[in-house]
């Protein structure tokens, strides 16, 4: 990083951290700059990585499929017109429809079948049984169309306990991850900027 760069990012870093004390004009200005830059960044990257090689160049080369792609782009951009913006629902519908169709086998396999395959282990140990009880009781917590009474209540209560263990574990792990980021920023402020590390 150049000295200018280090100073710029140090000022920005402090401006964002100032939000921890309270919202203030410096934070608000930095926030606007961050959002503006990031929108610009994404637009440039999208042009370079997708629109130019996949739409602009094929159209310039007069490829038939390139024109089809260009049509999708134009249909999407009808959103900007007050009169024709209903047309933008068509490309929207492609995304929704194709996404739904793609997700069914993918979800079925990765979220259900594989997880079940890993639950029903060939080797029976205490851990496998604890795991299976956890899966079944958690599922009973998600059982919606029956009042939670009787043995059902016990099962879903047990499921809640498993859920709490899971949430506690993720929270514990996450704290670590989040601290690493602060360590990175602090190293930058103390080391790269102030030079006291």
């Amino acid at each position: 990083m150049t000295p200018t760069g280090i100073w710029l990012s140090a000022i920005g870093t402090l401006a964002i951290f100032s939000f921890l004390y309270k919202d203030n004009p410096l934070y608000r200005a930095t926030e606007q700059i961050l959002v503006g830059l990031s929108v610009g960044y994404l637009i440039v990257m999208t042009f370079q990585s997708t629109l130019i090689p996949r739409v602009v160049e094929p159209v310039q080369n007069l490829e038939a499929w390139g024109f089809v792609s260009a049509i999708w782009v134009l249909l999407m951009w009808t959103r900007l017109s007050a009169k024709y913006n209903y047309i933008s629902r068509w490309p929207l519908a492609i995304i929704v429809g194709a996404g739904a169709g793609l997700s069914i086998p993918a979800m079925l396999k990765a979220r259900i079948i594989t997880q079940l395959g890993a639950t029903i282990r060939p080797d029976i140990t205490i851990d496998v049984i604890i795991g299976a009880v956890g899966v079944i009781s958690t599922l009973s917590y998600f059982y919606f169309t029956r009042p939670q009474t009787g043995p059902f209540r016990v099962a879903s209560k047990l499921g809640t306990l498993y859920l709490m263990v899971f949430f506690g574990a993720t929270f514990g792990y996450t704290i670590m991850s989040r601290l690493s980021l602060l360590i990175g920023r602090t190293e930058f402020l103390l080391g790269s900027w102030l030079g006291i590390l």
Partner: protein
Amino acid sequence: MRAAGQPFSMRVWRWVSTLPLILFLWAPSHARPHVIVILPAEVSDVPWDAGTALEIRWQTELPGDFEIVILRNRQDGITDTVGRYPADVLMVVDRGLTPGREYTYDFFVYDKFGYQVSVTKGRTAVAPRKNWFDREKSSELVIVLLIFALLIWASAHKTETYVRPIPGLKAMEDAIGRAVEMGRPVLFSAGWGAQLDKPTTLAAMNIFGWIARKSAEYGADLRFPVHDALIMAAAQESAHEASLLEGKPEWYVPENIFYVTGSQFGYAAALDGIMERERPATNLWLGTFAAESLILSETGNHIGAVQIAGTDSTIQLAFFLVTCDYTLIGEEVFAASGYLTRDPRVLGSLWAQDMFKIVIALGITIGLIGSGFGWNEIGDWLRQI
């Protein structure tokens, strides 16, 4: 050329080079008779595929230290090596072929010392065929069809479905009403992880449709900053429809559903700013969230907003649970639209989902009891799908 005329070293070399052959003749007798025999090989189409593979089988009793080199000939005269295989492999699948094109195969057998002991030229040409169904996926197809059948049947026939109370959803209407009383906005977000081709986002948009209707009904100031213009378009359509259904077309202001940025922390920083300045009375975090979840909900907590969250992002659930008033966990997000709209078709499919849970619980129980007795069929079947 007379042998006697050769130098001594050459004679030694001839002996040395013949030695492998001599050793070979001493090899186990069962290996020998096949040496001169033509390799009986058979080439056939691989069924249930895209028509890009042929199956090559051969029969021999040669041991594994004999090797077979297979060459593939195209009708236009081009020859490639398929590969070099131990003789006792007996079966090879040749992939990456062109559907409908004809191929013949030649087999060269080498002994354990690398000597070529037989050549078999293939005569019949075989072409791989394209197919319309992949048999390896038949289990999945059956499961998909079963799920579809039950879901569709239940949607059509289950008219009365009980749904257990889901506190977060019960509180939603009050939370919107509260914002109206306080004269402050309702803030909605489907999360930075949302994309319109994900089922969770679709579920979140269904909830948003209901929220928009209630907001239109009560006259709440509903704001939805988005990170993706497709979601913006979908949400605007939803809100527009809600305003028309409630007979309040003037309630719909497209600018209230606005694009912020696709950058995760740009989005989080902007939402934090919006919360600090506009002080929404109610925050609704429903969709797919990543690390921004806690930045949003902790700031929301700080400004004293009532917060209802719901997500399929398992990691973020813990944060929402600690910082929000109500949290919908995983599948509750998918159940929400049925719960809120009371659409019998949606509730019916909820009932079907529950039936599958029973099947799954039974499957786990039976499968594990089976495993205890060494019967692993269920687990093995699931793992090979």
